[in-house]
C-alpha cells in the first residue's frame, strides 16, 4: 500500500502510465474507428496532407496514414508484449535454476548466456529472416524473446545466489521445508519485484528491436505493417511529406519513453533506498552565541540540531571538550551520538539540515566555507571512523592514503610524505611498516586497518581527535589493543578526544567525562565516576542496569542431568577453497572447525564463546545437520531482519515450521502471547516491527514446534543494550517455563555469563576450555580464556581502571592455514615465557581437550603452570 502510494505520487509515473493507456487505446481502437483500412488505396488522394477525409494524410500510393499507423502501432505493441513476457519467463526460469541448483546446470547455463551475448541477436534474426518470411510475426516475436533474455537471467541468477545465503532461506532449510516450497515461497516472491520492473522495461526494448529489424526488412513483412516498416517507408518522404514519417516515429519514441518512466518509477517505489524515498537537500545555519567559550575549551558545541527531512536526529545538543581530556559520548542506535561529531566536521550528507554552533577555538565550524573546513579537517581535528574496511578507499595503497593526509597540510614532497607515513605506521605498531605501506586496505586485518586509521589521524598532530565507534567492528582482544593504542596516541599528542560509543565498558575505561545521549538529546553529562556511580536521570539508570557485566554474580542453577540432547567430540568441517568462476579449481582447504567437543543436556544452557573466525557458526550448522538433532532443535538467528522473509506476514513466518512438518497451526496466536507480542499483529510484515520485536518473532517461530533444544546464534548481538536485556529476560523465562535447553553462541562473554550454566570457549576451530560458567570465567585455566576475559571492558570506571589488562599480541590467525601443534601459541603469553624444550611440545603436539579439574576441561599443555601466575 505504501509502495503503491509512492508509485502513483510520482509525476513521471502518472504521465507515463497515462500515455501508455492512451497509446494502447489508439492502437486497438484506431483501426476500428478509421474509415479506411490500412491496405485500402484512395487513388484520388496520393501523398495528400492531413484533412477531414484522411486525418493523418495519405502515403505515396494513397493509403490512409492514420489507419496504417494505428494498425502498425498495434502490431508493434503486441510484439513488444509477447517478446517481453516470453524473455522474462525464460530469464527467470534459467536464472533461478542456475542460481539455486548450481553445479553443472549453472555452468552450462552461464556458457549459453555468454554465447548468446557474443552473438548479436540482430545477426541471427537477419540470417534466418528468409525462412521467417512465411512464418508470420509470432515466430519473429518468439525468436526476439529467445535472443533477449540473457542479461536479465544473469541478474536473476545473482539475486537467487544471494537469497540462498540469506538467513530466512537457511532458516527454512533447517526447518525442513521442501526445496520446491522454498523456491515458491521464499525465492520467487523476493525476485518478483525485479521481474515486474524488468518486464516493463523489456517491453520498450522489444519494441525498439522489432522496429529496427522491420526497418531494415528483416522483421515484419509487407503487406503487414509495424511502426518499423512505416518509418522505413516514410524516411525518404520525411522532408516533403512529414506526415508519412513523423506520426510513426513520434509514437515510437513517446511509447518507449513512457515505458521507461513507468519502469523507473516502479523501481523507485519498490526500492526503499531509492532516491525518491530520500529527503531533499538540507540547509546549514550557524547560530550566533552569547559568549565565547572559556579559554581551556578546545571544541565547544552549543544548541546543535540536525534534521534529515522531518526526522530529528539531534535536538539542541551542547557540550564542551577541554584541552587534553577524553569526552565519552554514549548512546544507543539512533541517539544521534555520531551525527553530532560528523556535523562538527561538516561531513553530514547534503540532505541534513544543521543549525547551531560548533567552535574550534575562535573558528565557527557550522556553515564554514570550504577553505576553513579544509584547514581544520585532518590538521586541527582528525577523525577515526567505525568500520575500518569501508573507511579506506579500496583502490589505493595504505601508505599513499596516509601520505595524502600529510601532504594536504604540509609541503612535504611525495617521498618525504611516504617516509613519514611509514614512520607513523611503525609508531602505531604495524610490523614491517615499509612493506605494509605498500599493501591495499583489503590486505590488512581489521585491527591493522584501525591502527592505520589512527596513524592517519595523528599524522598532523591534531588538537582534537573525534573517534566514532572506533572498536565496534573489532574482536574483543583486538579492541583491547586498539583502545590501548588510542589512549597512548591521545597521551602522546596531548590531543583532546571525543569517543563516541554504544559500549559503556569502553567509555568507563577511557573517558574522563561522559555525555549520555538518548533520542537526539544529551540527557546527562558529568565526570565518568559520577555518572556511572550516581546516575541522576532515569534513562542513564536504566542503561546502566541493562548492560550485562562480566563481574556480575549469577546464582548457579541445579546441574542438568540426563543423556545429552546433542553431543559431539572432535567435530571437523573443512571447506574447499576454490578459485576461478567458469572453471573452478581447488587451491586449498579452509579448516573452519577442527576438533570441537560439546554436549548439551536437557534443560541446560551451554554458552559457546569465541571471536570471529573461531568456527562458532560452522559448529552450530554442523550440529543442526546431524541426524536426529533437527527433530528436537530449532534455530534463532543473529540478525532478525535477514532471518525473516520480508514478503511473508508474521503469522505465516511463525507457522512455517509447523507447516513444514504438516502439523496444525491453531497454536500460533498463543505463541504471540508467549513471546510478548500481540496476536492481532499476525497479518503485519516484519519491517513494521522494531529490532527487538523481530527477534521475538524469530523466537516464537523456533518455539512453534515445541523443541527441546534451541540453538541461538548471537541472538542479541544486533540489538541495543536495553532491548537486549528484554530479550535475555524473555529467554530465561521461556527456559524456566518450558524446560528448554539452549546452545547459546556469542562473542560477548558478559551476556554468556548472564545466561549460561556451562561455557565452552573456542579458538580457531577448536574447543580450548569447557566447564561451569563460574569456574571458566572465574578461574580460567587456558591462557586464551584469561586474555579474553581480561579484554572485556567492565562498565564501571572504578573496576575497569584498576584491573590488570592482559594484551594479546597480533590478530586471530586465519583458518586458511593449517597449524601444527597448538594454534594459539603465536599469541600465547605462556608459550612466550617457556624454555626451548617446553616450546617444542607446543610447536609439535596439538594439546588435547582434557579434564584438569572435575568438570573442567582445558586444551593446553601448560595450563596448570598458568594458574599460579594469575
Amino acid at each position: 500500500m505504501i509502495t503503491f502510494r509512492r508509485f502513483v505520487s510520482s509525476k513521471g509515473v502518472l504521465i507515463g502510465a497515462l500515455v501508455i493507456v492512451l497509446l494502447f487505446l489508439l492502437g486497438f481502437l484506431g483501426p476500428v474507428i478509421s474509415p479506411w483500412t490500412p491496405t485500402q488505396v484512395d487513388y484520388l488522394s496520393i501523398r495528400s496532407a492531413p484533412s477531414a477525409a484522411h486525418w493523418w494524410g495519405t502515403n505515396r500510393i494513397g493509403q490512409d496514414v492514420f489507419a496504417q499507423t494505428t494498425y502498425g502501432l498495434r502490431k508493434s505493441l503486441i510484439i513488444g508484449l509477447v517478446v517481453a513476457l516470453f524473455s522474462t519467463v525464460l530469464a527467470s526460469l534459467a536464472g533461478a535454476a542456475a542460481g539455486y541448483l548450481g553445479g553443472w546446470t549453472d555452468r552450462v547455463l552461464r556458457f549459453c548466456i555468454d554465447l548468446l551475448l557474443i552473438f548479436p541477436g540482430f545477426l541471427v534474426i537477419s540470417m534466418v529472416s528468409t525462412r521467417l518470411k512465411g512464418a508470420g510475426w509470432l515466430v519473429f516475436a518468439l525468436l526476439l524473446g529467445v535472443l533477449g533474455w540473457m542479461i536479465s537471467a544473469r541478474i536473476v541468477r545473482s539475486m537467487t545466489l544471494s537469497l540462498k545465503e540469506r538467513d530466512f532461506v537457511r532458516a527454512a532449510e533447517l526447518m525442513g521445508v521442501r526445496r520446491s516450497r522454498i523456491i515458491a515461497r521464499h525465492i520467487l516472491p523476493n525476485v518478483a519485484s525485479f521481474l515486474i520492473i524488468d518486464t516493463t522495461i523489456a517491453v520498450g526494448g522489444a519494441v525498439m528491436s522489432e522496429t529496427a529489424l522491420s526497418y531494415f526488412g528483416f522483421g515484419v513483412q509487407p503487406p503487414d505493417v509495424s511502426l518499423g516498416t512505416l518509418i522505413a517507408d516514410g524516411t525518404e518522404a520525411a522532408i516533403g511529406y512529414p506526415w508519412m514519417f513523423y506520426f510513426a516515429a513520434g509514437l515510437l519514441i513517446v511509447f518507449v519513453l513512457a515505458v521507461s518512466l513507468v519502469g523507473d518509477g516502479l523501481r523507485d517505489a519498490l526500492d526503499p533506498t531509492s532516491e525518491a524515498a530520500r529527503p531533499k537537500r538540507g540547509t546549514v545555519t550557524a547560530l550566533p552565541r552569547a559568549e565565547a567559550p572559556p579559554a581551556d575549551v578546545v571544541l565547544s558545541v552549543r544548541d546543535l540540531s540536525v534534521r534529515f527531512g522531518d526526522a530529528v536526529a539531534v535536538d539542541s545538543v551542547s557540550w564542551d571538550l577541554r584541552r587534553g581530556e577524553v569526552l565519552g559520548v554514549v548512546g544507543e542506535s539512533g541517539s544521534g551520538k555520531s551525527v553530532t561529531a560528523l556535523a562538527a566536521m561538516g561531513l553530514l550528507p547534503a540532505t541534513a539540515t544543521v543549525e547551531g554552533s560548533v567552535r574550534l577555538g575562535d573558528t565557527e565550524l557550522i556553515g564554514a566555507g570550504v577553505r576553513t573546513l579544509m584547514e581544520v579537517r585532518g590538521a586541527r581535528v582528525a577523525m577515526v571512523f567505525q568500520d575500518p574496511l569501508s573507511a579506506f578507499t579500496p583502490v589505493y595503497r595504505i601508505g599513499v592514503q596516509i601520505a595524502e593526509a600529510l601532504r594536504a597540510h604540509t609541503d612535504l614532497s611525495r617521498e618525504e610524505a611516504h617516509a613519514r607515513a611509514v614512520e607513523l605506521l611503525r609508531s602505531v605498531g604495524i610490523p614491517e611498516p615499509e612493506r605494509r605501506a605498500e599493501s591495499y586496505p583489503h590486505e590488512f586485518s581489521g585491527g591493522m586497518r584501525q591502527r592505520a586509521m589512527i596513524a592517519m589521524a595523528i599524522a598532523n598532530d591534531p588538537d582534537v581527535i573525534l573517534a566514532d565507534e572506533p572498536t565496534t567492528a573489532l574482536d574483543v582482544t583486538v579492541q583491547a589493543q586498539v583502545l590501548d593504542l588510542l589512549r597512548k596516541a591521545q597521551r602522546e599528542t596531548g590531543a583532546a578526544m571525543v569517543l563516541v560509543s554504544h559500549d559503556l565498558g569502553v567509555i568507563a575505561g577511557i573517558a574522563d567525562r561522559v555525555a549520555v545521549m538518548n533520542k537526539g538529546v544529551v540527557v546527562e553529562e558529568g565526570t565518568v565516576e559520577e555518572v556511572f556511580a550516581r546516575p541522576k536521570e532515569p534513562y542513564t539508570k536504566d542503561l546502566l542496569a541493562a548492560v550485562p557485566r562480566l563481574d556480575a554474580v549469577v546464582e548457579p542453577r541445579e546441574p542438568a542431568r540426563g543423556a545429552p540432547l546433542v553431543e559431539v567430540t572432535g567435530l571437523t568441517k573443512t571447506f574447499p577453497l576454490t578459485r576461478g568462476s567458469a572453471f573452478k579449481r581447488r587451491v586449498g582447504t579452509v579448516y573452519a572447525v577442527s576438533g570441537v567437543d560439546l554436549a548439551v543436556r536437557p534443560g541446560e544452557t551451554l554458552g559457546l564463546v569465541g571471536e570471529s573466525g573461531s568456527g562458532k557458526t560452522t559448529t552450530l550448522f554442523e550440529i543442526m545437520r546431524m541426524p536426529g538433532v533437527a527433530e528436537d532443535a530449532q534455530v534463532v538467528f543473529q540478525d532478525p531482519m535477514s532471518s525473516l522473509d520480508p514478503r511473508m506476514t508474521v503469522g505465516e513466518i511463525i507457522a512455517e515450521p509447523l507447516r513444514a512438518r504438516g502439523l496444525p497451526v491453531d497454536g500460533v496466536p498463543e505463541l504471540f502471547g508467549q513471546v510478548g507480542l500481540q496476536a492481532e499483529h499476525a497479518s503485519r510484515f516484519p519491517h513494521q516491527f522494531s529490532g527487538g520485536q523481530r527477534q521475538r518473532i524469530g523466537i516464537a517461530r523456533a518455539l512453534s514446534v515445541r523443541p527441546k533444544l534451541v540453538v541461538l546464534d548471537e541472538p542479541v548481538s544486533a540489538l541495543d543494550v536495553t532491548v537486549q536485556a528484554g530479550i535475555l529476560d524473555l529467554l530465561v523465562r521461556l527456559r524456566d517455563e518450558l524446560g528448554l535447553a539452549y546452545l547459546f553462541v556469542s562473542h560477548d562473554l558478559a551476556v554468556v555469563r548472564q545466561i549460561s550454566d556451562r561455557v565452552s570457549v573456542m579458538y580457531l576451530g577448536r574447543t580450548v576450555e569447557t566447564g561451569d560458567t563460574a569456574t571458566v570465567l572465574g578461574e580460567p585455566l587456558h591462557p586464551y580464556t584469561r586474555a579474553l576475559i581480561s579484554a572485556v571492558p567492565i562498565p564501571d570506571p572504578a573496576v575497569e581502571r584498576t584491573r590488570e589488562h592482559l594484551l594479546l599480541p597480533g590478530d586471530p590467525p586465519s583458518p586458511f592455514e593449517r597449524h601444527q601443534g597448538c594454534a594459539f601459541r603465536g599469541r600465547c603469553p605462556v608459550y612466550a615465557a617457556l624454555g626451548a624444550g617446553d616450546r617444542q611440545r607446543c610447536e609439535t603436539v596439538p594439546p588435547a581437550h582434557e579434564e584438569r579439574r572435575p568438570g573442567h576441561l582445558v586444551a593446553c599443555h601448560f595450563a596448570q603452570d598458568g594458574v599460579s601466575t594469575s
Partner: protein
Amino acid sequence: MLGYLGRRAGYYVVLLLTAVFISYALATASMNPRAYFEGRRPQPPAAMVDAQLTELGINDKVPFLERFGTWAGHAVTGDLGRTIDDTSVNDEFGRRIGVSLRLLILGTLVGTVVGVLAGAWGAIRQYRFSDRAVTVVSFVLLSTPVFLLATLLKIGTTWLNDNVVHLIDFTGETTPGLQGGFLVHLGDRAAHLLLPTLSIALGTIAAYSRYQRATMLDVLASDYLRTALAKGIHPRTAMLRHGLRTALVPMTTFFAFGFLGIFTGAAFTERIFGWHGMGDWFMNAVNRNDVNSVVAVNLFAAVVILLSGFVADVLLAVLDPRVRNA
C-alpha cells in the same frame, strides 16, 4: 593477475569456436545459395550451378559436416573462403574492417568518456537543474532507437543543408572526387564521421551516464569518501581521486555489456549513412544468400565483442587491486 586473464582468454576461445560453428550451421540452414544461381537469367544448367556451388564450398548436396570441415580447414589457415561472386572473403574483409573499426572505436570512446563524465557530473549535482536536464535528455535518447536517431539526424541535416546553410555532407566516408591537400581530405573525413559517430555515441552516452550516475551516487555516500574529506583535501579532489576513480570499477561490467549495443548500432548506422563496413556487407550478404560472407561477419562480431569483454576484464583488474590479487 596474468593467470586470471589467461583463464579468461582460454574461456573466450571456447566461446568463440562454439559461436562460429553455430553461425555456420544457422547460415547454412536458413540460406539458399542454389536459388541465387538458379534465379539468374538466363538460367544456367543444373550441372553448372552444382559445379559453381561446390567450388565455393556451399553446395547443399555435400553433407553439412563435410562442408563445415572444409571451411574450417581453410579458416584455421586464415582463409575465410569465397563470396558468392567468387571473390575472396578475406579481401572484402580487409576492405571493410577498417570502416567498421573507425566507427566502432570512435563511437565507443566518445560514448564512454562523455557518458561517464555526464553521469559523474549529474551525481555531484544531484537534484539541481543541470542534473535533471541531463536525466531528461538521457531518457529521451534512450527511448530513441539508433536507426531512428540516425534517420532523424540525416533528415535534420538534409533540411538544414537545403534550406538554411550547407553544413556537411554525410553520405559515405568521403566526398567522391574531392580536390585539395591533406587537410582538406582530413576535414572532409571528419565531417563525414560526425553524424554516424553521433548516432551511436548519443545513445551510449545516455546509457553510460545513467549507470555512472548511479554508481557515483553510491560512492558519494561511502565511508571512504568521508575519510578523504576528513583529511582536509579539497572536496573536488576527493570527488575525482577517491569518488570517480572508485565509481569507475563497476562500470567495467557495463562496458562489456554495452559494447553489444554499440556494435548493433554501428551496423545499422553504416547502412543508413552509406558506409561500406561490416554491417552493410552483412545485410547485402543475407539478401544474396552469401553464406561465407555472413559467417565472416559473424566471426568479426564475436571477436570484437569478446575483445571488448577482454578489455573490460583487463580494465577491471587494472582499476581494482582486489581483483588483481584474487
